[in-house]
């Protein structure tokens, strides 16, 4: 099967055979790849964790229509995520990996010919470049072809959140080409315009691009011939690295206050944790688990002990950022946090609407946990209980659900200002819906208003 998202580079196409991820290279690309391996560059990129592990697959003949001068196989990264699903620190780390790989390449006379954020995937919490064929020959002089793309995919969204306090995720939702620099230029008004990097990468570039649009073809060709020595390009990239490394998010987050405000008694939290643990052990498959509404990730971390791969999703970017830091610090190599709103998950998008896959086509968990989420969906957002139970069975083979009754103080707080009548929301009704499409494997009352369930799809 040929990857629908890999048509942009005609010299290398991605295809799949059985469970293998393969790239068919045209002769030019094959020659460059061979040279990158001969100089030891590829080894350095892989051993520094910048590139995904990859090797020459001599035994594979690509399908009709795919370049076949060489075939490269790469290790499968089980969680495929997109930039709009990353938190601030994740996009920042992905940017740094892209720059570091470029610097390493330049030392050996190569460069990365593109800087798409879609070329980066997270192995647990470690960003890794998967586009092996983005390595290009550079020689002694040249231009950083991907400078503009790097700014649109990484710098602009990071600046948007750092300097304007706007979470970039919503600006990247269903976008394949980042944040246009002109948009950022118009958004960064007043004092935000004096921040580091704005005068050059945003103001100057916007100005010159407006000018350049009116330039004659010959003048554009002349500029296309321009080149700089490798040392000058490396200098620009190092300055960019310093700029990115200093950026900090200025977006507001609700999670921190919320976590503190939870009126849990330690006892019920322990009972919940124990229930999640036994459900995880009893799961039919331990391939992948998703913690829906992961928040600070207390239960995501329990899941990570029992599943090969765990994704903690939350619609609050601050919560995801915190979980990313916790998981990285405690060395949880199989936990990837993502910014996903379960009521509006990433759709499929891009060229012909299929270039990038939807979240629910990419992620098929064997178990999902929905802890303290149900009342948000039903009482907060007014979603019908029956619909939510249907989603739970659709999303994963097994589910661990915490039912929070309408009388619960937290549920009361959520629905306090609601005037309109809601769809019926009771524990009996939940059990009825849950039992009609699956089996209630286990059930535990953790407090007078909260009950835990382990559900299995029939």
């Amino acid at each position, binding site marked *: 099967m040929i990857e629908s998202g890999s048509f*942009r*580079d*005609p*010299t290398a196409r991605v295809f799949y055979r059985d469970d293998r991820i393969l790239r068919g290279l045209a002769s*030019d*690309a094959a*020659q*460059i790849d061979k*040279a990158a391996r001969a100089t030891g560059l590829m080894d350095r990129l892989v051993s520094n964790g910048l590139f995904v592990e990859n090797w020459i697959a001599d035994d594979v003949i690509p399908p009709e229509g795919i370049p076949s001068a060489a075939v490269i196989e790469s290790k499968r990264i089980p969680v495929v995520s997109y930039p709009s699903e990353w938190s601030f620190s994740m996009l920042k780390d992905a940017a740094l990996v892209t720059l570091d790989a470029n610097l390493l390449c330049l030392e050996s006379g190569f460069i990365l*010919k*593109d800087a798409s954020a879609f070329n980066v995937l997270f192995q647990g919490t470690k960003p890794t470049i998967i586009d092996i064929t983005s390595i*290009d*020959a*550079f*020689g002694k002089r*040249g*231009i*950083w*072809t*991907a*400078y*503009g*793309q790097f*700014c649109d995919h990484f710098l602009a969204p990071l600046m948007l959140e750092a300097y304007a306090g706007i979470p970039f995720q919503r600006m990247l939702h269903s976008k394949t080409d980042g944040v246009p620099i002109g948009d950022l230029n118009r958004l960064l008004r007043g004092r935000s315009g004096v921040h580091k990097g704005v005068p*050059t*990468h945003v103001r*100057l*570039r916007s100005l*010159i*691009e*407006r*000018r*350049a*649009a*009116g*330039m*004659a*073809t*010959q*003048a*554009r060709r*002349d*500029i*296309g011939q*321009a*080149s*700089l*020595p490798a040392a*000058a*390009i490396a*200098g*620009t990239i190092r*300055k960019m690295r310093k700029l990115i490394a200093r950026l900090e998010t200025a977006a507001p987050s609700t999670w921190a206050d919320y976590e503190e405000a939870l009126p849990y008694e330690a006892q019920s939290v322990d009972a919940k944790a124990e229930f999640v643990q036994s459900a995880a052990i009893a799961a039919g498959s331990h391939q992948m688990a998703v913690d829906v509404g992961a928040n600070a990730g207390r239960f995501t971390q329990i899941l990570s002990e029992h599943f090969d791969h765990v994704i903690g999703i939350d619609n609050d970017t601050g919560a995801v950022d915190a979980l990313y830091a916790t998981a990285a610090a405690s060395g949880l190599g199989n936990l990837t946090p993502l910014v996903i709103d379960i009521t509006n998950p990433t759709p499929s998008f891009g060229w012909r609407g299929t270039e990038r896959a939807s979240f629910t086509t990419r992620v098929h968990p064997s178990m999902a946990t929905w802890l303290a989420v149900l009342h948000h969906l039903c009482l907060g957002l007014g979603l019908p209980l029956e619909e939510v139970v249907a989603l739970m069975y659709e999303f994963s083979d097994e589910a661990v659900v915490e039912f929070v009754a309408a009388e619960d103080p937290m549920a009361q707080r959520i629905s306090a200002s609601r005037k309109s009548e809601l769809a019926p929301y009771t524990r009996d009704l939940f059990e009825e819906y849950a039992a009609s499409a699956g089996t209630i494997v286990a059930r535990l009352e953790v407090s007078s208003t909260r009950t835990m369930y382990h559900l299995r799809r029939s």
Partner: protein
Amino acid sequence: MIKPSFAYLDPGTGATIVQLALAGTAGIAAAGKLRMNKIKRRLARDAAAEQTEHSEELEEPAPAE
């Protein structure tokens, strides 16, 4: 010596000029072949032309130097 493969990604005229500017005086001095003056003159002239002849075709070839 391997030649860079044809770039499928257009760096863009604007982005290239910004890079030359970012490289600073050191970069510009090192890039002697750049004919920066010529480019600057072209930029200035194009901007001037843009202001006086709004209706003119953008794709019209520039007069020979």
